[in-house]
């Protein structure tokens, strides 16, 4: 599994038209900050961020068929570890992502072990993931070393320091963009790898996968652990972007759900789905918030979420496979290819 070889192959196999479109799109994203104001930069940051965590979640649900509703756990763990190490010990987030990844992987492994060893599947497994996120929320709420329910804050420094994730929206734009692209390449490589095929087999029919020599337990564990690790990295970045962490928001089930919308709407199990979903959903939600604020004269909390809820229902009703498979056809990409 060599990401670069995969990239070369992807470029090789993709139809010319789709490739050109993608290249143009990337070029626009690279130069866009020149014309974007602070607000739009922050919107794009959110798009890239949700595309990244969406891709991470998609590994578990889209590739391996394991429904996690507690991914906020890994965001929170990554965020708190990054913030703690920086504020309390002066350790750069560039280094802190290593412990962040390791801790998230450990938690993922425990959840996976509990679930998969005892044959807990589907909604039962989903509940287990929620339970762990909730336990983490309560734990952090009561842990005074990290500020408890009053929150944990990263001081804003005047001097920009990109390695330490200190800087303006422009910095976070590029960090999140890079994160999204790296996640994509990683997912593409995984999707084509032996492990990726094992995941697909497990998703489609675990019993049949077992009969073909696939160790189903190991495949599922790998999915949880890798997904947790990717999400934790995004968590570190989010903490430094927000500069604050509150357990009640960070580990909230609403956050977990918000994270999974993009891949579902974009197309579960596809490579482009989570990215496409984030590009559709986040701007719509943000526009709605701004619009309501303009009309009502004040922010009404929950408006964008009502919209998300309606979007979910409409999409799952009409195109349960998401937008990407539909768009793929329009772009002339044959079925069975990305």
């Amino acid at each position, binding site marked *: 599994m060599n990401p670069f070889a995969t990239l070369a192959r992807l470029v090789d196999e993709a139809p010319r038209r789709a490739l050109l479109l993608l290249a143009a799109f990337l070029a626009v994203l690279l130069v866009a900050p020149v014309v974007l104001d602070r607000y739009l930069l922050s919107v794009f940051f959110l798009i890239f961020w949700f595309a990244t965590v969406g891709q991470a979640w998609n590994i578990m649900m889209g590739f391996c068929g394991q*429904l996690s509703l507690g991914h906020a756990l890994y965001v929170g763990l990554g965020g708190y570890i990054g913030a703690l190490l920086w504020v309390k010990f002066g350790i750069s987030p560039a280094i802190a992502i290593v412990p962040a990844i390791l801790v998230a992987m450990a938690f993922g492994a425990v959840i996976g072990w*509990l679930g998969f060893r005892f044959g807990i599947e589907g909604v039962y497994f989903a*509940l287990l993931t929620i*339970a762990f996120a909730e336990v983490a929320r309560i734990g952090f*709420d009561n842990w005074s070393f990290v500020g408890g329910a009053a929150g944990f804050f990263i001081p804003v420094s005047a001097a920009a320091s990109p390695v330490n994730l200190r800087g303006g929206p422009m910095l976070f734009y590029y960090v999140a963009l890079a994160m999204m692209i790296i996640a994509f390449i990683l997912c593409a490589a995984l999707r084509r790898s032996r492990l990726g095929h094992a995941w697909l087999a497990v998703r489609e029919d675990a019993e049949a996968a077992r009969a073909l020599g696939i160790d189903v337990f190991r495949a599922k564990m790998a999915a949880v652990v890798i997904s947790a690790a990717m999400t934790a990295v995004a968590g570190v970045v989010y903490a430094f972007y927000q500069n604050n962490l509150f357990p009640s928001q960070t580990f909230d089930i*609403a956050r977990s759900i918000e994270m999974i919308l993009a891949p579902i709407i974009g197309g579960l199990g596809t490579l482009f789905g989570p990215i496409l979903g984030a590009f559709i959903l986040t701007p719509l939600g943000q526009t709605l918030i701004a619009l309501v604020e303009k009309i009502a004269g004040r922010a009404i*909390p929950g408006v964008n*979420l009502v919209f998300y809820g309606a979007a979910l*229902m409409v999409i799952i009703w009409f195109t349960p496979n998401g937008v990407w498979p539909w768009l793929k056809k329009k772009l002339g990409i044959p079925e069975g290819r990305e």
Partner: protein
Amino acid sequence: MLWSLYANVLVQGVLTGLVYGLMALGLSVIFGVVRVVNFAHGEFAVVGMYAAFVLFRSFGIDPFLSMLPIAAAFFVIGYGLQRTLINPFVSRPEHEQFILLVGLAIIMVNGTLMIFGPDARSANLPYSFDSWEIGAIIVDKVRVYAAIAALAVAALLFAFFRFTATGVAIRACADNLVGAAVVGLDVKKLYALTFGLGLACVGAAGALMVTLTDATPMIAPAFTLLAFTIVIIGGMGSMTGAIVGGLLIGIAEALASVLIAPSMKTMASFGLLVLVLALRPQGLLGRRA
């Protein structure tokens, strides 16, 4: 006296647990028959709470009385929902059902938020703080009333499933869907009835809940989780299991909040959940799939 503390906690846990049990009963009945997990369950409970709250504040109708029209209204809503929205999803994959209902839940919780705001609302019944003293045990009157009402509704539901023709038909659907269709039962209608009954339970439970705790939109996901946890502990689809699970969770929460810390009550129920999942994944009273 330490034992009196335990006894007080235990009694309080049992009484609250019965209301929890009624809420979970709705979820369990729906899952047991329609095979759909109602992920908007806690949201319905919260809407029930607000309905009781508004009826009390605006018209002075006691929640113990308003729970009846609320349950009736919820039955109609549930019947309609199953007929229109949920029935097309009955044979769809689990995650699609889940997404549909999560969408509904998000709309409900944030809709409530937009209407009532984020602040906690208390019904403030005139007898909210009345209690009986039995030796060293102090029992809140509202808790007793709520527990009795919850038991009564649950008993009605049990009786319905045991003694009425429709109830037996619904159980036949749950046991053997193909068989039920073959003997000419109108499965769609029975599903809709079941969903209605499930929501009636949660509506009544919501009305009762408002006598015990404050209403806030943000508590909805916690209620969904609570009901879900109870049902898994008791056994998916088992009606008795839902009540037993409710009692267990009620007691566990009460004990944890007194003995450890109030914030630890959710921890206790999740600890119980993990234990049950590890030792008996089908739930205490559930049948192995």
